[in-house]
């Protein structure tokens, strides 16, 4: 186990540091595609897209990131540790009785975590309400980002949120779908088409390509919510 992968106080964190941080939770630096399906998108968001830092984690005008797919949160915790939200020394406690780091995240236990998740299909409706709440307070600048999985998209609550947000033109709402082809019955015609049909701005990119992710996550989408479908290796490949 490598424990000297990163020292946020003296060096800018790098993507290459993340496997070491994940290793603090799993005891293994080698992780399969399923454990890291979200890793690249999370990194690009926290490194280059989201306007939130540990210092602004409670600021009302911060960008919000809602991890809806709460399963397999090691990549999320690793990114939060790399960015200074979580002390890396806490990572080895992952899943322990007194640890703030559960196998599903709890917003009341971890600074910077916007929602408690684990049961699928809750992040997008919460994201809709968050975007509405910010708008109602005149906060038109902060962006709301929700990360969901392609199998999570089975849950009907997502479809309630997608249809409403599209019809409402909820421009500050953004979704990243990590598509590792894990939905049992698949999505004929692709997931992006589901969003596009409801009026969203939609793009599908290589979920391991940081430049493509960054471009897709920063593209303009006036008057419409935005979805970026990040395709990665199939879960069972």
């Amino acid at each position, binding site marked *: 186990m490598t424990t000297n992968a990163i020292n946020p106080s003296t060096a800018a964190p790098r993507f290459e540091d993340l496997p070491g941080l994940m290793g603090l939770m799993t005891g293994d630096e080698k992780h399969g595609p399923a454990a890291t399906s979200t890793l690249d998108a999370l990194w690009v968001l926290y490194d280059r897209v989201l306007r939130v830092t540990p210092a602004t984690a409670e600021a*009302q005008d911060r960008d919000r990131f809602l991890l809806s797919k709460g399963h397999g949160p090691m990549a999320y915790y690793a990114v939060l540790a790399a960015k200074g939200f979580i002390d890396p020394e806490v990572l080895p406690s992952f899943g322990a009785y007194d640890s703030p780091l559960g196998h599903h995240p709890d*917003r*009341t236990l971890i600074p910077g975590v*916007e*929602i*408690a998740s684990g*049961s699928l*299909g*809750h992040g*997008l*409706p*919460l*994201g*809709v*309400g*968050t*975007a*509405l*709440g*910010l*708008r*109602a*307070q005149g*906060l038109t600048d902060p962006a709301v980002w929700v990360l969901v999985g392609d199998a999570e998209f089975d849950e*009907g*609550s997502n479809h*309630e*949120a997608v*249809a*409403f947000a599209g*019809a409402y033109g909820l421009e500050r709402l953004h979704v990243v779908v990590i598509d590792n082809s894990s939905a049992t019955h698949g999505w004929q015609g692709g997931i992006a088409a589901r969003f596009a049909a409801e009026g969203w701005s939609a793009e599908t990119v290589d979920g391991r390509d940081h430049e493509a992710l960054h471009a897709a996550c920063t593209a303009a989408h006036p008057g419409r919510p935005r979805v970026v479908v990040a395709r990665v290796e199939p879960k069972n490949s």
Partner: protein
Amino acid sequence: METMRERFFDVTADLLDADPRVALVLADISAASFAAAAERHPDRVINVGIREQLLIGAAGGLALTGLRPIAHTFASFLVERPFEQVKLDLVHQGVGAVLVSAAGSYDWPAGGRTHMSPGDVALLDTLPGWTVHVPGHPDEAETLLRHAAADGDRNVYVRLSAHQNAEAVPVEPGRFTTVRRGSGGVVLAVGPMLDAVLAATEGLDVTVLYAATVRPFDAAGLRAALGDRPDVVLVEPYLAGTSANEAHEALADRPHRVLALGVPREEHRHYGSIPEHLAAYGLDAASLRERIATFLW
């Protein structure tokens, strides 16, 4: 006669005007009645359509940004259908909302079982921290709605019914009110059940307590009303026995008896009217008198 639900329309419009933290989330039900409020406050009156999971999820998101959401639809679709959203998007997130229901247990008997939710309060009893108001008159509904909106970030359920009492009781949120004093036991009437309970106990030597707030349960109020005769009859306009455990806990240190009356668990496959259903459930004044008198004498 004005209904509690109609008063809710007026009070909520007023709250929206007065408090920039208040937001209203609807799922089509009652949306037309809030058209004027929506025009004044387009960003804080939100109709999500017939999407009740989103109704509660969006309320949770609004609360996460610091607003005080009020979510409203029929009880069946506010508590039962999106129950996991109530559990996770409000309670587990550590945020609060005011849920205001209509139709309750038997308000639209001709609508049948799909629009009956006698188990709503019992369901909320499985979750921590809920305040539950069950007003019996539009004036009480107004008092409790205003109290709920200003009740910090607590989770509050306000159960509005088309069944109501002729006169309002001057209620204090969270406290039982003594309506009649006697020495032969206590009958606790909840919300719309008060008129029938008063008629049923006419001439009987019993104390009648009135509850427009059932959670938290005013255990001290119940104990203070009991005197030497620790016999309690609960008369609730929802699932029979919903508050029985609260009554037993309140009296855990002394021998006591509890008779818990309310809407039966069994499906009742009849249509018709509210009075017909109350009679069928044994909750009309004549049935209540017989059941109460048998238990207390």
